[in-house]
């Protein structure tokens, strides 16, 4: 029974479409949960800048406001540990997702980022049995997600030794930055067969290749609508093939239900794994249909989904 419980979302950044979709999903699902009387309230909070210190202060304020549970998309896996520990000590349930925290008292709804990186190489190995040169676009320097995906890619490359990463540039998970970085190195690069990414920078890379007048390699895409549409256009025109890997913004709703289950007294393991969102050549049209123009491909979770994930983790 959680009808009198309050849950807060602590979000550290709102400046891109993924985060906006994440907040939208939260609002949609929790709004319904509140009106159904499942929980008393589910407020969302966002900090102005993507900074761990600001988010730590935000969490401390939530403790003060007496929330029953805090759902966190963290700016840093470790820098919030102090604040998270304080929340736990105050008897608050803390569930982290996407950007998870390492503090043992918190729950984690994690995506296997390493697998997300390695999976790209598996796909490319199938496409190009002879291997070839790769360009890697990395995320924001100094963040854990960037490191983990990169490690996954590196592991994939060493497992498929015919591939070689000839250049790695910083994309900062920002399309315009990725476009600029790729455009800068392209002139000096040999032929590349594929571009491995962290999801979301693919379209920028495609623009850069086009501007340089080079043939478009297989670019691993993310889940933004414009990327998918570009893919569709290429597919219709020339049978272009690739894949898309990403995290569904709706994972926030899964975290919400997990928090609700914990408050409900259910036994929930600390580490839960959600599959990342993967779209293949065949699923493209369907994904496009379900994606809002200019938005991102998304999956929202229900209470039952959450129960399934929890059950799977218990095994």
């Amino acid at each position: 029974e959680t009808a009198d419980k309050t849950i807060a979302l602590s979000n550290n950044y709102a400046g891109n479409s993924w985060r906006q979709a994440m907040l939208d999903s939260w609002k949609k699902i929790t709004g319904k949960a509140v009106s159904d009387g499942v929980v008393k309230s589910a407020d969302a909070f966002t900090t102005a800048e993507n900074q761990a210190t600001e988010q730590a202060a935000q969490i401390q304020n939530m403790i003060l406001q007496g929330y029953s549970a805090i759902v966190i998309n963290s700016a840093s896996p470790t820098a919030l540990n102090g604040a998270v520990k304080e929340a736990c000590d105050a008897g608050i349930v803390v569930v982290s997702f996407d950007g998870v925290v390492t503090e043992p008292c918190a729950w984690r709804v994690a995506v296997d980022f390493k697998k997300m990186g390695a999976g790209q190489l598996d796909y490319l190995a199938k496409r190009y049995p002879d291997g070839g040169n790769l360009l890697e676009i990395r995320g924001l320097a100094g963040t854990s997600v960037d490191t983990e995906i990169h490690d996954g890619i590196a592991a994939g490359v060493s497992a498929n030794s015919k591939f070689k990463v000839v250049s790695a540039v910083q994309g900062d998970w920002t399309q315009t930055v990725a476009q600029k970085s790729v455009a800068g190195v392209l002139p000096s690069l040999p032929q590349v067969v594929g571009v491995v990414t962290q999801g979301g920078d693919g379209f920028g890379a495609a623009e850069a290749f086009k501007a340089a007048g080079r043939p478009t390699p297989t670019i691993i895409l993310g889940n933004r609508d414009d990327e998918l549409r570009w893919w569709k256009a290429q597919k219709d025109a020339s049978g272009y093939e690739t894949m898309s890997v990403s995290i569904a913004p709706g994972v926030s709703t899964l975290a919400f239900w997990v928090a609700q289950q914990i408050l409900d007294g259910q036994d929930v393991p600390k580490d839960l794994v959600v599959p990342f969102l993967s779209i293949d050549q065949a699923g493209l049209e369907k994904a496009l249909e379900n994606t809002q123009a200019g938005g991102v491909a998304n999956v929202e979770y229900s209470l039952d989904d959450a129960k399934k994930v929890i059950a799977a983790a218990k095994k």
Partner: protein
Amino acid sequence: MSAAVRKPRLGGMGRMPWAFSFAGALAIFAATVAFTGGTGAGQILTTALTFATMYVIVGLGQMFVVTTGPGNVDLSIPATIALAGTIAMVVMDGRDALVPLGLAAALGTGIAVGCFNYALIRLLSIPPIIATLSASFLVQSVAIAYGRGLRVRPPEGFAAFTTGRVAGIPYLAIATLALCLVMAVLLHRTVYGRSVSAIGQNSRAAGLAGIRVDRVRFLTYVLSAALAGLCGAVLAGFSGGSSLNMGEEYLLASIAVVVVGGSSVSGGQSNVAGLWGASLFLYLLVTMLNTFGVGAGLRLLLTGLIIIAIITIAGGPKSGRA
């Protein structure tokens, strides 16, 4: 540019403060080309020109603001870029016929932000650095509430223009060069330009010399925000749609191109040519380090050291009298 009409008149100042940025850009370009063994030199230049234009456009506005004196800086540029880009794309609605309207909307957004900035600075006498920062938070919120983070694609024709080129030279660079010529004339040959410089040196004296200080500063902040708005529209066209975070890198970049380009941060002195040098320099620097395959940490470190080295060699302004 038009300063050359008369022999350089900057008494004790470095004679050509902008030359260093060009020299730096050239050196870095040479190093890059040497590393790649000459492949892609032309290509690198072309892309450099493309990306430098964005820096130059926002740099122009920031330069005028910085010239109006110490403490004057516009930190609302990134938020304005995001908001204006979004509005422009929504107004253009993917139709080429609406491009002029979209550009006007972007400029209008910039002008509105500029007015708001200056209202804070003047009416509430908030120091510009904080005023524009606070304003940028509000603008960012408006952008979020208005655009909802959705990406609207630019009209085909507009996108083609922003990415197109003739003989390896991007249209965008040509257009920006024309804009720069206008700005240089504005800076050196008009009463407004002289007024900006005078206010930057001593605003009380400027007022007593008959300059309408408030009006000039107002126009300057509006100009800066309008150019940021323009940059937002162009950037959205260039990168296939607007996004909320596309302005982020322009906060530091807009300041960096102004100061590396040889304008004085203590106000009163500026030049347009240096913006190009500095923009090319900053772009080529990242490209070079990317080409060398330097990791993120080392790349940041080297970027910083090279900026400091350049400014140290170029030296600061020498004061006239002991």
